[in-house]
């Protein structure tokens, strides 16, 4: 046997579970998982890697769309395979019977339990919906395609 230099795969999964606090952390009120939400943003907005938290600036508005977006269904525990930790929402994100007339092209997934802190921005090209349902189907929850992957 020989030692091999590596970032431990368990650590990657534990990051998603909030186990490690290498910097100053927050006082958590419970051991339950946080509530994540998904909000839609206009194509004219400027979300990206620099986004730190959800804000209504640049968010879509329209019939039957509630500011802040929809709650992410989270029945999947973070897992790992090989050296990659991964997690994916367990159901599609669905915005039902909406009219979103101004072009939008991104969804922000954020942590509404932790002061709306941002997790990821995902783009899908400029779109509009009129009197219809917008469905975002999640990728397969594995180490290759999962929505959040730490490789």
């Amino acid at each position, binding site marked *: 046997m020989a030692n091999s230099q590596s970032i431990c795969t368990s650590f990657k999964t534990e990051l998603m579970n909030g186990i490690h606090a290498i910097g100053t952390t927050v006082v958590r009120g419970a051991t339950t998982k946080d509530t994540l939400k998904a909000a839609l943003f206009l194509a004219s907005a400027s979300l990206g890697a620099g986004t730190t938290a959800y804000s209504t600036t640049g968010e879509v508005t329209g019939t039957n769309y509630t500011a802040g977006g929809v709650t992410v269904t989270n029945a999947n525990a973070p897992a790992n395979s090989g050296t990659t930790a991964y997690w994916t929402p367990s159901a599609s994100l669905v915005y039902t019977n909406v009219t979103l007339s101004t072009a939008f092209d991104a969804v922000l997934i954020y942590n509404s339990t932790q002061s709306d802190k941002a997790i990821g921005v995902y783009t899908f090209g400029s779109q509009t919906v009129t*009197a*219809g349902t917008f469905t975002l189907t999640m990728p397969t929850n594995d180490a290759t395609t999962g929505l959040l992957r*730490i490789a």
Partner: protein
Amino acid sequence: MDTIFTTKGFLPADQVEMRPTVTCDDDDKTVTRVDKYLKETGEWVGNDLHVHMKRLPAIFGEQGAFA
């Protein structure tokens, strides 16, 4: 009876024609726009949208080394 939401409210499904068009299909996503028309008149009465997210960028953990 199944209904479909349109610009005219909920209509019986058998009165509405759904016309799907794949507008983007790449490694990252498939986008399908479904336009809705009244079968009787051909009037456009809205659209649904389906985005299938396939593969998204990963965060890569890079290990430092002792100096």
